[in-house]
């Protein structure tokens, strides 16, 4: 005899669960995922990824290794690898039986070697039988991370169009407007659950939100303020790790007096911006690399120091207490942050004009993506984005940390926040092997499936 309480619970459970009929634990095959994004992609070529293209790239192209959510390399097109004790010479054994989308078989040939050489300039790649050998110019323990990020394997058709081995084929690309991907039935990792993915480009945040709300889109980008709104409406939110550095980047030589930069940096109340404007999304940043990536970000101060900022500003001539800060005119959040910084600066005695667009300004509010899961590589990449060419790469964590401090002491950049890339997801979207959004923002949609669509 069942206890009365369980009978009651059974009825209630049935009632409750009937309302979510259609939900199921096991993934189902089929359906079209409708994705919208603000950026536009003109072509999908591993040699010219771009910020938006780098998200789509994993749909069509595979690397030798995959980097999982914890930053660990996993076999992909390479099933195994070895290296010498020095981490200079590496050898990868290719996965047998893999076919490109055009039907040709993946072999360790000169085309693959050329693709890798293009992705890793300075490295020597040689192909032999079913293996690839990579010789690094210096000891490179983080080679797998780099291969998982940049080392897309492709072959080019006679027309020069790159063909990949990825879970989806690029079926159509209307430049800057729309792209359609269809499932690769022969995918070595198993056919994707989805039949196809339709990506609409150039959609404004507002349009994306509306389309998600009315059921015209399944996966849209979310601004921080929309994350809370999405949560309020019971929408799932997928996020990357806080991988985008929002920072003030000063243009070379402006303003002339570096005390302005320091006073401005010390006047900013990041916590208020983080709590209110960013709705607590992301992390307050004092350093360039996020804490989750480096582990030492907390060493760099991020709290405001208004007395010191006032002291610095007071020491400046009145005419030198001004600066201008440019922000992306199409991004309301950037404007709000720039205006808040301007307000903070006013408290310190500085006049900072927040100016929209690409107006000639002293500094800009920049979004700098952290491009590598290897701090040793991510820092020189960020330095390059800041205009420091050939910033020396360090491999040991302590050296990377020191290098980061040196970069910050240059005064060209004031880190503000590390922000994640957030996506709003329609209720019918499920993911079998999370995360669908990689730590660095790449889309892993092969494990996404749709609840409600039948195979």
């Amino acid at each position, binding site marked *: 005899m*069942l206890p009365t309480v*369980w*009978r009651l*619970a*059974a*009825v209630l*459970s*049935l009632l*409750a*669960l*009937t309302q*979510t*009929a*259609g*939900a*199921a*634990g*096991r*993934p*189902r*095959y089929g359906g079209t995922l409708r994705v919208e994004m603000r950026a536009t992609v003109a072509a999908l070529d591993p040699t010219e990824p771009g910020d938006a293209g780098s998200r789509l790239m994993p749909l069509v192209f595979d690397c030798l290794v995959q980097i*999982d*959510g*914890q*930053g*660990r390399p996993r076999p992909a097109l390479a099933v195994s690898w070895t290296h010498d004790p020095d981490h200079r010479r590496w050898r990868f054994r290719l996965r047998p039986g893999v076919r490109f989308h055009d039907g040709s078989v993946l072999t360790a040939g000169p085309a693959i070697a050329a693709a890798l050489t293009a992705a890793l300039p300075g490295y020597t790649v040689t192909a032999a039988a079913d293996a690839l050998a990579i010789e690094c110019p210096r000891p490179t323990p983080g080679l797998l991370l780099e291969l998982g990020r940049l080392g897309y394997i492709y072959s080019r058709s006679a027309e020069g169009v790159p063909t990949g081995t990825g879970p989806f084929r690029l079926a159509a690309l209307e430049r800057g407007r729309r792209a359609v991907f269809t499932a690769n039935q022969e995918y070595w*990792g*198993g*056919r*994707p*659950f989805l039949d196809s993915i339709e990506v609409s480009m150039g959609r404004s945040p507002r349009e994306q939100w509306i389309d998600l709300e009315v059921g015209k889109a399944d996966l849209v980008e979310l601004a921080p303020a929309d994350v809370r709104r999405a949560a309020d409406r019971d929408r*799932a939110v997928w996020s990357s790790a806080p991988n985008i550095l929002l920072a003030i980047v000063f243009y070379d030589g402006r303003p002339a007096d570096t005390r302005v930069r320091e006073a401005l940096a010390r006047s900013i109340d990041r916590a208020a911006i983080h709590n209110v404007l960013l709705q607590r999304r992301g992390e307050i940043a004092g350093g360039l690399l996020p*804490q*989750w*990536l*480096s*582990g*030492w970000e*907390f*060493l760099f101060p991020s709290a405001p120091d208004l007395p010191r900022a006032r002291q610095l500003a007071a020491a400046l001539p009145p005419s030198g207490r001004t600066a201008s800060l440019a922000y992306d005119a199409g991004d309301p959040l950037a404007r709000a942050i720039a205006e808040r910084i301007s307000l903070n600066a006013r408290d310190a005695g500085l006049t900072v004009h927040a100016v929209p667009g690409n107006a000639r300004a002293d500094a800009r509010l920049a979004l700098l993506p952290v491009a590598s*899961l290897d*701090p040793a590589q991510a820092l020189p990449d960020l330095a390059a984005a800041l205009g420091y060419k050939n910033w020396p790469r360090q491999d*040991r*964590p*302590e*050296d990377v*940390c*020191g290098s980061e*401090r040196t970069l910050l002491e240059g005064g060209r950049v004031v880190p503000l926040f590390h922000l994640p890339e957030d996506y709003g997801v329609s209720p019918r979207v*499920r*993911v*079998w*092997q*999370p*995360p669908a959004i990689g730590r660095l923002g790449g889309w892993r949609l*092969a*494990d996404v499936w749709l*609840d409600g669509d*039948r*195979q």
Partner: protein
Amino acid sequence: MKGCLKVLFLLACLHAGRAAAETPEAAARDLARAVFAAVEADPAALSIRNLSSLPAAGFAEVRAAVMAALRAQGVRLAENGAAEVRVTASENLRNWLLVAEVRRGETRTVLMTAWPRTPAASAPLTAVWLERRLVWEQDEPILDFVIVEGEPERRLFVLEPSRVAVYGRTAAGWEPRGSFAVAAAPGRDLRGRLAVQGNAFQAWLPGSACRGTIDPPALECTAGEALWPLASGGSLAGHATFRAGHNAFEGTVFTPSGAKATVPPFYSMALAGSPEAPLWVMTSLDGRAVVYNASFSPAGQPISGWGGDVAGVEASCGAGRQVLVSRPGDAQEPDAVEAWEVGLNSAAPVSPPLEFSGPVTALWPSGATSASAVVRDPSTGRYAAYRLAIGCGS
């Protein structure tokens, strides 16, 4: 600038010429050596904080290790020392970090040591209506596992997408005894079954069926769509073909008596009802569970709200047959397993849910009152194998 504290920022290279520490104790020792060098003979005011995801117990161990290492190194600790040492436990993707900031006069030195992140400590066992026990954890997906009690030792067989790994139980834990490579047809939601009897074992994977022995180590695999066993409550209910490249059974079922029936494709099955009037409960691809009678005719209303995985058990209470059911939902969400009793026109939970931190990726019966469950931790991506037991009474 006058009046301003001149801070000289130094980063110490602790690992020059040798490998990083492997354990927190070793990292703490390295750090202590560096701290000693930085403070020289001055007494130091020490503070330790945790910015990592180490649980309180783990951090307490680290803290104790640091304190012990500092004392062993001869660092004099005092509340108002001339030097200030702040140690922070931190982490990044691959390592745990110990970062020491040493302030001595106008000099600030930062010292850093690291040790690799290791699997988290075993979760404590919980005993309620349903009982679970963590058996094994690993990074690779676990499709099925079997524990064999026997001589000379307890053995754990773990079926992975590319191998069958065998572990032996020792005082230090499970230790590898060997592995056998298998090959499954490519699939995103790979599933597999493992059966062990004595020295021999059998593994079923999409598009492949293998048979092997431990001693001598041997394995033979046959490619193609093999019949998988359908078990429930420790007995064989029948066989069905698992569709290669997909994650579900074909709809053709062969009963032990040799009868053949055709039903829609299903993810998993369990027997309910009574031995005299068995009911086949099959989770179909539309998210509902369909109940069939012994002649495979639909019986009763389909059941909604279940996950894709069910496992039949036979606790000696209630109707005698229970169905362990996973929860529907996203694979990023915490999952739960609960026991239901299913009749012709009724379906009711009979146990409180047994909560897991991640989704249940595999749920197979492993005996009359036990089942195997594999859970993926969404935060770490690791797979944990649980032995579930159902008991009657409190």
